[in-house]
C-alpha cells in the first residue's frame, strides 16, 4: 500500500515536474508546479512528516503559488521566443543536470555518514509521547533558536526591501481618511439657510 502510494506520488511528481518545463502556456506550467508541490507533500506524509506536508501545502500551494499564478496570468509572454531560447541553452542545461544527476547517484551510493562517530542527533526521530509538530517546535525554539530568529530578520529585511523598492507616495490621488470621516459632525458640513423665493442660494 505504502509502496503503491509512493510510486503514485513520485510518478506524479516527476510527471508534473516535466510538464512544468514542457507546457506551452506559462499558466499551465504554474498549475503543473502546484501539482508537483502537492505530490511532494504526499511524499512527506509517507515519511511520517505530516507537519511539513501541511506546511508545504499551506505555504507553497496556498500562498506562494497563488501569487505566482497571479503574476504569470497578468504577464504578456511570447512563448515561442521563450522556447527558442530554451532550445539554444539545451546542451548547457543537459550538462548541468547530468552533473547533478551524477551527484545524486554518488550520494545514494556512498552514504557512509560518520563511521563510528556519534551522528548528529537530528537523525533520530521524535522522542516517544511527542508528535513531530511538537518536536520540530521544541527544536526550533531551543537548539536552533539563533538561526531561527535570524531567519526572521531575513524576512524583515526582505519586507523592508520590498517596501523601499516599490512604495511611492503618489500625488494627486484621492484617499479616504477613515478617522477624518468618522470625526465629521453635521455642524461642520451642513448649513441650514433660508432661500428667498425666486433668488436661489449663493454657494
Amino acid at each position: 500500500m505504502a509502496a503503491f502510494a509512493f510510486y503514485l506520488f513520485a510518478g506524479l511528481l516527476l510527471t508534473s515536474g516535466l510538464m512544468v518545463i514542457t507546457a506551452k502556456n506559462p499558466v499551465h506550467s504554474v498549475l503543473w508546479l502546484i501539482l508537483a508541490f502537492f505530490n511532494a507533500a504526499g511524499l512527506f506524509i509517507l515519511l511520517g512528516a505530516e507537519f511539513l506536508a501541511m506546511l508545504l501545502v499551506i505555504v507553497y500551494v496556498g500562498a506562494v503559488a497563488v501569487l505566482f499564478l497571479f503574476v504569470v496570468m497578468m504577464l504578456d509572454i511570447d512563448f515561442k521566443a521563450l522556447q527558442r531560447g530554451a532550445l539554444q541553452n539545451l546542451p548547457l542545461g543537459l550538462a548541468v543536470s547530468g552533473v547533478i544527476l551524477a551527484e545524486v547517484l554518488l550520494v545514494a551510493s556512498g552514504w557512509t555518514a560518520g563511521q563510528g562517530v556519534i551522528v548528529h542527533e537530528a537523525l533520530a526521530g521524535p522522542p516517544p509521547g511527542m508528535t513531530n509538530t511538537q518536536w520540530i517546535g521544541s527544536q526550533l525554539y531551543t537548539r536552533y533558536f539563533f538561526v531561527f530568529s535570524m531567519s526572521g530578520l531575513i524576512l524583515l529585511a526582505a519586507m523592508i526591501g520590498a517596501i523601499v523598492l516599490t512604495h511611492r507616495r503618489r500625488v494627486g490621488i484621492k484617499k479616504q481618511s477613515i478617522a477624518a470621516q468618522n470625526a465629521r459632525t453635521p455642524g461642520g458640513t451642513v448649513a441650514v439657510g433660508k432661500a428667498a423665493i425666486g433668488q436661489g442660494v449663493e454657494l
Partner: protein
Amino acid sequence: MTYTGWFVEQFGAGLGWFLANLTLILAIAFPVMVGVALAVYADRKIWAAMQMRRGPNVVGPFGILQTFADAAKLFLKETIIPAGASTGVFLLAPMISFTLALVVWAVMPFDAGLVLADLNVGLLYIFAVSSMGVYGIIMSGWASNSKYAFLGGLRSAAQMVSYEVSMGFILVAVMMYAQSLNLSDIVLAQKGNVLGILNGNIFNPLLFPMGIMFFITALAETNRPPFDLPEAEAELVAGYQVEYSSMSFALFFLGEYANILFMCALIPTLFLGGWLPPLDLPFLYAIPGFVWFLSKMAFLFFLFAWVKATVPRYRYDQLMRLGWKVFLPLSLFWVVVVSGWLMFTGHFAAAPGVM
C-alpha cells in the same frame, strides 16, 4: 469489532479497508449534499423573512423541494464552453472547488470519536485545504477568457490570501490553549474551560475577540456578503462564474455552500465547544453530542444568513484595509497577548519539549 475491522474480515485487508473508508466517505458526503440543499432553502427563507417576503413556497411543502428542483434543472441543461476558453482548466476549476469543499470534512469531529480521519494536524489540514480553495476560483477566472471572470478571480485570490493570514493567527491562539492541532483534542480542551462550568473558548475573555474575528474572516473566506466581491453582480455580472452553466455552475454553487456549512461547523468546533453542551452540567450530556453539534451549526448558519440579509457589500479597498490594517495587526497583537498570558500562568509547564 470496529467498523473497518468487520470489512477487513469480510473482504481481506486491502479491499476491506478500501470499502470501509469508501462507505464512511459517502456517509459524510451524502448528508453534506443534502444539508447543502436544505441550507440553500433556509438561506432563502431567512433572507425573505428579514425582507418581509415569503421566499420559496411553491415546490413541495413550504417550498422545501425548491433547491432540488433548481438542481434538477441545472443538471438537465447543456454545458456551454466559451470558444476562447482554455477547455481543460475551464472544466477542472469547478471540480476542484467542489472536491475541496467535500474533502475538508474528513477531519471534522461530529461527536466524540465520530470522525473519519483523526489527524493530529487536523487544524493544519483544514487550513491547507481552505487555502487551496482559491485555485478553483482563480482558475475559472483565467480559463473563462472573459474580463469579468478574470477580475472576479483576481479579486478573490487577493481577498482569500489576505484573510488567510489573520485566520492563521487566530488559529494559533486557539491551538495554544488546546496545545494540540487535533480537532477532537481542541474540542475536549474546551470542556469546562471557563470557570469550570462553561464549555467553549468563546466564553474566555482572551479568546472572545478572536472568535468574533474568526467569524468575520470566515465570511471573507467563503466569499459571503458583505465580502462577496468576487461575484459582485452589480459590477462584475457574476464574477468568476459568469461563463459557467449547467453542471459546472452547479458544482461551484454546491462547493460554495458546502464551504459555508463547513465554516458553520468549524466555528463551533474551535470556539463553541463542538459536540459538548454549552454548560458543563451532567444532565446536559444526556442529549447526544451530535445533536448539540448540529444545533450549533444551525445557529451559526442563521448568523451567516442574517449577515447576508442585512449588511451591504464592502468596497474593495475597504475590504483590503480591513484585512491588512485592522485584522492582521489586531490578531498578531492578540497572539502576543494570549501567549504572554499563557506563559505567565504556566499553561505550558507540562507540555512535552519545554525546557
